[in-house]
């Protein structure tokens, strides 16, 4: 049985925290907490795939958690959310440290051969440029027959329509065939089971990813007061905010204030740029 030595770094996860408050004790939070994020090299070293079960053990105890691929994680390290799982591995008083080793836990990892569970990756550690899918990338996965059954002139147009959430994956008959199974699975993973409906605004909000930090709302509030019109700045006062944090997540409250609705429109993308969780996406 292959085994790998790792140093685990624990981190706070807000979704795990709020799930604990929402769903009684740990039951609902388990899925979010019973995981360790590893590098590709370590996954290979263990001979397992993304989503496989692994056992972490050291002198303090052992736990069985799901291994998840994290492209940002260097070899030899593992990231784990602070939870009752990570607590099983923490020791105190073994070395002469003043504090328990909450942040640097040495463990050995072994695959258990259990069921592989691959969830939709909701909690990437940060938004990266790779997270956002590009039309050409979608196009490469489409049949490329330009059959027009979906109502678009070409498959490239359909790729744009998919990203703009104007069409759904089910609109393409060829994509449902066996030979495109892999593409369909990938696209379903990205767009979700129901390839989303998006409001007229073209602003897509993934409420499960949003922290409610309000960064988008505050930068928008600072930006909407000045408009650039043919080289000169026009000040607008008393504009109601476009975005507000309602019930813990961002919501569009006054779309009319957005610079994108002006005539001529100003294609501002500040809210999307400043959103670190990747919850906010301007799709068209």
């Amino acid at each position: 049985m292959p085994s790998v030595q790792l140093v685990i770094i624990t981190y706070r996860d807000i979704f795990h925290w709020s799930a604990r408050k929402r769903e009684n004790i740990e039951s609902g939070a388990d899925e979010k907490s019973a995981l360790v994020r590893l590098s590709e090299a370590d996954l290979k070293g263990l001979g397992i795939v993304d989503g496989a079960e692994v056992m972490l053990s050291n002198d303090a105890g052992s736990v069985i958690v799901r291994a998840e691929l994290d492209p940002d994680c260097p070899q030899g390290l593992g990231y784990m959310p602070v939870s009752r799982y990570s607590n099983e591995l923490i020791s105190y008083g073994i070395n002469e440290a003043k504090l328990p080793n909450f942040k640097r836990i040495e463990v050995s990892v072994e695959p258990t051969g259990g069921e592989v569970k691959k969830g939709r990756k909701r909690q990437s550690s940060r938004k990266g440029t790779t997270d956002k899918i590009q039309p050409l990338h979608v196009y490469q996965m489409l049949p490329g027959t330009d059959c027009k059954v979906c109502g678009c002139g070409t498959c490239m147009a359909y790729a744009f329509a998919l990203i703009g959430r104007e069409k759904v994956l089910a609109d393409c008959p060829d994509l449902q065939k066996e030979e495109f199974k892999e593409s369909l699975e990938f696209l379903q993973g990205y767009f979700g089971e129901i390839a989303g409906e998006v409001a007229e605004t073209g602003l897509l909000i993934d409420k499960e990813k949003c922290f409610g930090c309000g960064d988008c709302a505050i930068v928008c509030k600072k930006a909407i007061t000045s408009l650039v019109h043919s080289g000169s700045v026009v000040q607008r006062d008393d504009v109601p905010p476009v975005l507000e944090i309602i019930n813990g997540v961002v919501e569009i409250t006054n779309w009319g204030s957005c610079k994108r609705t002006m005539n001529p429109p100003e294609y501002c993308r500040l809210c999307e740029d400043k959103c670190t969780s990747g919850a906010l996406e301007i799709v068209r």
Partner: protein
Amino acid sequence: MGLTKTVCTGCSCLCDDIGIEREGQDIARIENACVKGSSIIRAADDIPLRVPYLIGKREVTLEQAIDKTAGLLKNSKHPLIFGFDNSTLEAQAFAIELARALGGVIDDCSSFCHGELVLSILNGTIPSCSLSEVKDAEMIMYWGANPYHSHPRHLSKFSYYAHEKYNPAGWSPDVTLVSIEVRDTETTFNSRPFFKILPGEDGKLISSILATMKGQGDRGDAKDIVDLIRQKGFCVIFVGLGLVYALDGDLSLFNEMVHMLSKETRISVMPMVGHFNMRGFNHRMFQQTGYINKVSFANGVSHGPEFSMLEQVKNNDPDCILIAGADPFTSLPSHMANNLKNVPIIALDPFITPTTQASAVVFGTAISGVETWGTAMRMDGLEVPLVPAWESGRLSDEQILKLLLDEVTR
């Protein structure tokens, strides 16, 4: 019903612009609160999550629970009073009084968290500032902290985005956001520059910064940090648990670095305190005993590492533990819970937690701030009056502790 303004007690940001709208008994709308804050406010309405008064998992009246607890505390030779980081300042005052009356040990989460840093600020070793002053800073540094998961509104309400000089276009920023971290996080994504270090390397980095200031260092990142700080007129360093644990709680090197840097520019340090009133507990204890935590009242006032909750539990010292506003069964190493198996625990908590499940007596309390009046201390040391969004009729930690204190001292 209209919008009620309240203070969120989800974390030590204590955001005071939260609006709650109720329709009958249900919460219809929560304004401005982040995921963390809104989930705690919503949980207030979630009956299965809330605990009643319990003795050994059996529901009892308040009087029975008070009688039982007073009996346990009075018969205890080495009581330990722990927590109160999620309680109001008023409740903390009663807790200290109770510990004094019982001659017991009192400690809180700060003994394995930000305690050392709060002490350094309290005794004037290192400079700090208020969150409103952060808006004048020229450099904001997060060291070992990821506020998006611990204090989600920190950047938008108090630091980077709330900064007066923050320009959304960002061509020539007057304020710089810097992170020192071991992994890529949401905070490091926005930071320019971001210094990525190896786990546990923080101590070495600080030594290199000190050496660089004396003109001897050879580390590139240490040189960059020093150059950056020297260029700026006012730098605020937000210290997260990443740095505290990397230094194993010994902040002398960090303090020396801050001291050295202070000679060249204005530096302020602020702990990214997790629990909403942990700093309040430290301040209150400091006022009354001269120490911030780890105090025993068995023989006057004595202080020492042996009175930390971790040491007490490890050595099986306490024979009765009163826990309020904390959940040690979730936050401590699991094997330490075994040491608590034969010790009667009295827990005061608004919600069912692993701690309340392991407790002999449980008091289901009101959620501080959401359901009760009181005062709490923000991470910068500012006292914030808490305004309840509604009154649930449940007793607060303060009221229960007062009843207990009356019963014990009778």
